[in-house]
C-alpha cells in the first residue's frame, strides 16, 4: 500500500500500575460511589515565557467550574489538593526503573518531578505531576527497531462523572494512580505496525507484573503526520484493534486537507475576515428547528463571509470536508454547530433565506461562501470566529491539533496542541538520586521477557509454540501457569479454555471479563477433582459469567459428574436402544455411537472414559 509508506507515526502508551497511589497512601482503585462535591475553578497561569499557555487558555475560555467527589479509602486531602504530596510510591518508581531497563533506556541520574499544566479540571491542582525517568531506549517489533524517546512516571487524572450547566463533576478515585507513560519515536510506518508496537510494549509492561489489567487501565495516544501534513495527536484510544483504523483515517484526513490547500492556493483564496454580521431578520420566519430553537431562547443568527471557500467545505462527493472541521472547532465554543453554504439549503433552512443571505453579504465571486451560526450572540460570535480561523488554517494545510478518537475509527477536534511551555518543577517533591548500584541490582533481576516466557511454557507445560505465543500475547500466561502449578494434567484444558473457549464464549455474547481469576481457579480445582467433565467446562464458564458462584454452577446446570455405574447405566441404555445396529456392526459400532452417548451423558463423564464404557457395553451386548 503506497499510502502506508508515507505515514509517520509515534505512539504514547499510558499504563496504570497496580501499586498504591503515586503521591499519597490511598488505594488505587475505582469506586462506584462518590461523596461531596467541592467546587473549584482553575486559572491558567503564566508560563515561563511570561505568556499564558494557549491550550490552557482555550480551556479557561470555556468558563468551566469543577466539582470534585471524594471516595472512601481511595481519595484523601492530597487528592483534593488540600495537602502537599508525599512519595513517590517506591514500588511505582521501581517499576518505572525496571521497565526502562527492559527497553534498554538510559535512566536519569536524578529524577525530578514536574508540574504539567492541565486546567481542564481533571487534576485538582491544575497540573499533572510527571517525571522523566529515562530516554533513548528501543523495542523490537517484527524485526524492526522502534526507538523509545522517553519513559515517564506520572499520575492519572480524575474521572469525569458528568457535565452540566457549565460544571464538570470529577471523582477523585482515579486521580493519582501511577501511570507509566512510554513514547516511541516517529518510527512507525504503517497502521498495522502501530498496533504491533503497542502490543509489544503492552506485553513488556505486563511482564513487570505490577500493572493493572482491564478496560481503561491502558490508553494509547497516537502522533500522526504525513509528508506536508502536520503532527496531530489522537488522545486516549483504548482499543488496540482500532489503532490501525485511526492511523489510516488520520493519514487520509491529512491528504484531504492537503488537496484542499492546493485548490485554495490555485484559486488565490485569501484569509477570510472574522467579522460577523447579524442576519437574524432574514431568518425571522424560518421553519428550521435549529433556527427557531435558537431564536426562541433570545439567540441571534450571525453570518460570516468566506470568499474563495466554496466547494471545499463539502465537495467532491463528500471527499472534501473542511466544513466538518470548521463545525468541530465551532462546537468547542459551546454551540451545537454551524451551517455553511456548501450544505444549504438543508436542515429546514429555506432557499429564500439562502438567497437573502447571499444578497445581504454581497457574495458575487464564483467561489464565495458563507457560514452561519444560531445561538446566544456572544457564543455565536466566538464560534463563528473559530470556524473562520479554522477555514483560514486550510490555506497552510494541516493544523497541528489534539483530536479525540471516535468509536468508528475516525476522530474529532479536541483542542490545540499544548505548547512546550507548560512544565515547571514540582517543588513539593524532592529530587530522587538513582545510584549505579541500584541499577546494577535491577539489571541483575529483570523480569522474564515475553519470548522467554513462551519458551518456558513450551518446555514446562507441553503447549505448542503457537499456543505459548498466544497465551503470552493475550495476557493469559500468568493465570495459565497458576492453574498448571496448582492442578496436575490441566495444561491442555487450560490452554484450550483461554485460546478457544473464551473467544467462542465472547462470540456467543458472553462477557468473559466477568469471570475472575479466582473463578477460573475454582473451576479448574473442581475439574481436577472430576466434579464435572472437561466437556462441561464451557457451559460452566458461561454460567459463572452469568453470576453463578463456581461451586454451584455444575449442580445448577445438572452437569455434576456421575459415578461409573450411573454412566454405565446410561450408556447401556443407549446401546440397547440401537441393539440392531450394534449387532450388525459389532465393535465398529462404537465410533458412530459416541455422539449419541456423549449427548445422553451431557458432559457428566469425560470423553475418554465414555469411550471405554461404551466399548465395554457393546462387548457385553454382543457377547
Amino acid at each position, binding site marked *: 500500500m503506497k499510502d502506508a509508506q508515507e505515514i509517520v507515526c509515534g505512539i504514547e502508551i499510558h499504563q496504570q500500575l497496580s501499586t498504591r497511589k503515586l503521591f499519597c497512601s490511598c488505594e488505587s482503585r475505582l469506586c462506584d460511589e462518590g461523596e461531596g462535591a467541592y467546587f473549584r475553578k482553575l486559572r491558567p497561569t503564566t508560563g515561563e515565557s511570561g505568556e499564558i499557555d494557549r491550550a490552557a487558555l482555550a480551556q479557561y475560555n470555556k468558563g468551566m467550574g469543577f466539582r470534585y467527589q471524594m471516595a472512601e479509602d481511595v481519595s484523601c486531602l492530597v487528592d483534593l489538593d488540600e495537602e502537599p504530596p508525599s512519595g513517590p510510591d517506591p514500588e511505582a518508581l521501581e517499576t518505572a526503573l525496571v521497565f526502562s531497563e527492559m527497553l534498554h533506556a538510559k535512566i536519569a541520574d536524578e529524577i525530578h518531578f514536574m508540574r504539567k499544566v492541565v486546567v481542564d479540571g481533571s487534576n485538582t491542582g491544575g497540573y499533572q505531576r510527571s517525571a*522523566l525517568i529515562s530516554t533513548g531506549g528501543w523495542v523490537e517489533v517484527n524485526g524492526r527497531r522502534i526507538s523509545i524517546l522517553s519513559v515517564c512516571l506520572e499520575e492519572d487524572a480524575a474521572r469525569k462523572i458528568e457535565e452540566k450547566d457549565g460544571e464538570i463533576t470529577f471523582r477523585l478515585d482515579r486521580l493519582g494512580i501511577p501511570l507509566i507513560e512510554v513514547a516511541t519515536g516517529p518510527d512507525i510506518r504503517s497502521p498495522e505496525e502501530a498496533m504491533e508496537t503497542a502490543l509489544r510494549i503492552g506485553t513488556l509492561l505486563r511482564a513487570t507484573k505490577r500493572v493493572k489489567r482491564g478496560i481503561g487501565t491502558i490508553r494509547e495516544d497516537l502522533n500522526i503526520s504525513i509528508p506536508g501534513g502536520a503532527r496531530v495527536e489522537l488522545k486516549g484510544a483504548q482499543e488496540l484493534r482500532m489503532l490501525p483504523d485511526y492511523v489510516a483515517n488520520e493519514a487520509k484526513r491529512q491528504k484531504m486537507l492537503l488537496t484542499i490547500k492546493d485548490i485554495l492556493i490555485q484559486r488565490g483564496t485569501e484569509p477570510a475576515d472574522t467579522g460577523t454580521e447579524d442576519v437574524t431578520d432574514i431568518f425571522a420566519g424560518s421553519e428550521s428547528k435549529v433556527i427557531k430553537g435558537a431564536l426562541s431562547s433570545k439567540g441571534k443568527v450571525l453570518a460570516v463571509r468566506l470568499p474563495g471557500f466554496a466547494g471545499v467545505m463539502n465537495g467532491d462527493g463528500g471527499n472534501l470536508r473542511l466544513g466538518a472541521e470548521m463545525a468541530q472547532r465551532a462546537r468547542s465554543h459551546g454551540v451545537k454547530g454551524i451551517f455553511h453554504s456548501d450544505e444549504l439549503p438543508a436542515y429546514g433552512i429555506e432557499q429564500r433565506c439562502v438567497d437573502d443571505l447571499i444578497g445581504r453579504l454581497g457574495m458575487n465571486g464564483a467561489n464565495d461562501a458563507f457560514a452561519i451560526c444560531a445561538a446566544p450572540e456572544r457564543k455565536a460570535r466566538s464560534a463563528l470566529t473559530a470556524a473562520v480561523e479554522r477555514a483560514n488554517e486550510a490555506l497552510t494545510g494541516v493544523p497541528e491539533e489534539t483530536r479525540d478518537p471516535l468509536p468508528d475509527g475516525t476522530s474529532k477536534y479536541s483542542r490545540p496542541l499544548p505548547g512546550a511551555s507548560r512544565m515547571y518543577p514540582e517543588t513539593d517533591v*524532592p529530587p530522587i538520586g538513582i545510584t549505579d548500584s541500584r541499577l546494577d541490582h535491577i539489571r541483575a533481576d529483570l523480569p522474564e521477557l515475553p519470548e522467554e516466557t513462551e519458551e518456558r511454557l513450551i518446555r514446562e507445560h507441553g503447549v505448542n509454540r503457537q499456543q505459548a505465543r498466544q497465551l503470552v500475547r493475550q495476557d493469559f500466561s500468568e493465570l495459565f501457569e497458576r492453574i498448571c502449578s496448582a492442578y496436575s494434567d490441566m495444561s491442555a484444558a487450560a490452554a484450550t479454555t483461554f485460546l478457544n473457549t473464551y473467544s467462542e464464549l465472547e462470540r456467543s455474547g458472553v462477557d468473559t471479563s466477568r469471570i475472575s481469576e479466582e473463578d477460573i481457579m475454582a473451576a479448574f480445582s473442581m475439574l481436577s477433582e472430576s466434579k464435572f467433565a472437561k466437556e462441561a467446562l464451557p457451559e460452566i464458564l458461561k454460567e459463572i459469567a452469568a453470576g453463578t458462584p463456581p461451586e454451584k454452577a455444575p449442580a445448577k446446570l445438572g452437569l455434576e459428574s456421575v459415578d461409573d455405574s450411573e454412566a454405565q447405566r446410561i450408556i447401556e441404555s443407549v446401546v440397547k436402544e440401537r441393539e440392531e445396529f450394534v449387532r450388525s456392526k459389532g465393535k465398529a459400532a462404537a465410533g458412530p455411537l459416541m455422539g449419541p452417548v456423549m449427548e445422553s451423558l451431557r458432559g457428566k463423564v469425560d470423553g475418554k472414559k465414555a469411550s471405554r464404557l461404551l466399548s465395554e457395553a457393546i462387548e457385553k451386548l454382543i457377547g
Partner: protein
Amino acid sequence: MVYSEMLSKKLEGADAKEGDRISLRKGDEEYVGRLMAHHDFSAPDILILKMSSGYNIGIRVLKDSEIKVLERPAVKTVEREEPEPRKGLPNISLVSTGGTIASFVDYRTGAVRPAMSASELVDAVPELRDIANIKTRPLFSIFSENMDIIHWQKLADAVAEEINAGADAVIVPHGTDTMSYTAAALSFMLGDVPKPVVLVGAQRSSDRPSSDAFSNLMACARFCAEGKAAGVFVVMHEGLGDDLFSVHIGSRVRKMHTSRRDAFRSINVPPAATVSKDGKVEYLTELRAPSPGKAEARTAMDDGTILLQYYPGMDPKVFAPIISGSRGVVIAGTGLGHVGEPMCRVLKDACDRGIAVIMTTQCLGGTTNMNVYDTGRDLLSAGVIPVGDMLPEVAYVKLMWALANSESVEDAKRMMTETMANESGNRRCLL
C-alpha cells in the same frame, strides 16, 4: 546542598548561568538543555537541565565531562502601565508583604521565591480592577515565618499612611503561617482605624492554577469595596471549595490546619461575614462602620514579653529564669486556666516581682475561669490575670503592645482585661 567544587569550577569556566542553554558532554553522550537552579536536596555533582520536552532531569557531572554554553536567554522585560483610576470605584491600596500568596516560580531557573510584586499579583487577577482602583505598594518580600515585630510596626505605619492618603481600604497579602499574629498586632496598633484593613493569604501558591490566592483576593476586594465595616480582618476560604469565603475579625482568628484552604477559623465567635463566589457579602455580626477620620498607628511594642504553653512535666528549673527575665508572660494553661503546682509557684513569684502574668487556655475554645478549682483560685490571689476567651497568641501580642503603651505594669494589666479590638467577649454563643 550547593555544587561541588569540581562542578562549580566547570560552570565558572564555561561562564554558564542559570537559564542558559548549555551542552553537557559526558563520555559518548551529549545532553542539551536549559540550566536550572540547583535544588536544595540535589547531590553536589548533579546538574539540572530542562530538556526540550520541558522535563527537568538531574545529570551527574564527572571530572572529564565538558560544559559549553550554547545560548543565553533573551531577557524580556514586560512593560507595565498603571491604568487610569476609574471614577465611582473605591480606591484600595494593596500593601504586599510576601508569602505563599505572592510566591512564584522563576520559570527560567525553576526556583520558588516570594518574588511576585504587588502589581504582578494584581495583573494576575485583572478582574480586581473592575471592583476598585487598585494602588500597589510593595513593602516586604518575605515568607511569613520571618515576619517580626519590626515588620508589624512598618506595616502598621504603611497602612495608616495609605488610609491618610485617601485609600478607602487597605489589603495586605500575607503569608499564612503568622498571619493571625500580624492581624492581632495591626488590630491593637491601629485601634479605631476608620477603614477596612484586610489581610489575605493563600494556602496554595499563586503559580498554581488551583491557587486560592485569586479567589481569596477577589473576595477580599469585594468585602472592602462594599465599605460597610472598619477594622482589621482576615479573608480566607470558608470551606474546601472556591465558592464561599469568610471574613474573620483580626483578633479572633487562628490557623487551624497546616494545609487546607479553610485553615483559618474564627474562634469563640462566628466569622464577621461571608462572601460568596458571585460577590454577595453576608454580615454575621455587627461591625463598626467606616468613617472619614484619620488613621493613627501606635506601634510601640515591648519585646520582653513571652508566650508559654503549660504542659505536664514543665520544669520550673528551666522556666523560672526565663519568666523572671521577662516583663510579661502569657501562659496557655490547661482547661479553665491552670498550671501544675510547681509552675504555680513560679508564676506567683513572677507576680511578686511585678511581672505581668496573663492566663489564657490552650483549649482555645471557651473562656478561662479560675474560680472553679483550687489551683485557679491560688493563681488569682497571686495576681495572675485571666483574659477570658482571648486566644493565647492574641494575648501575647496584646501584652507586648499594652506594656509599651501604658504608664505602668498595673495600667497594662488593666488594659489586658479591657476589650480593645474585639479580642475578647463576655458571651459565647452556640456556634
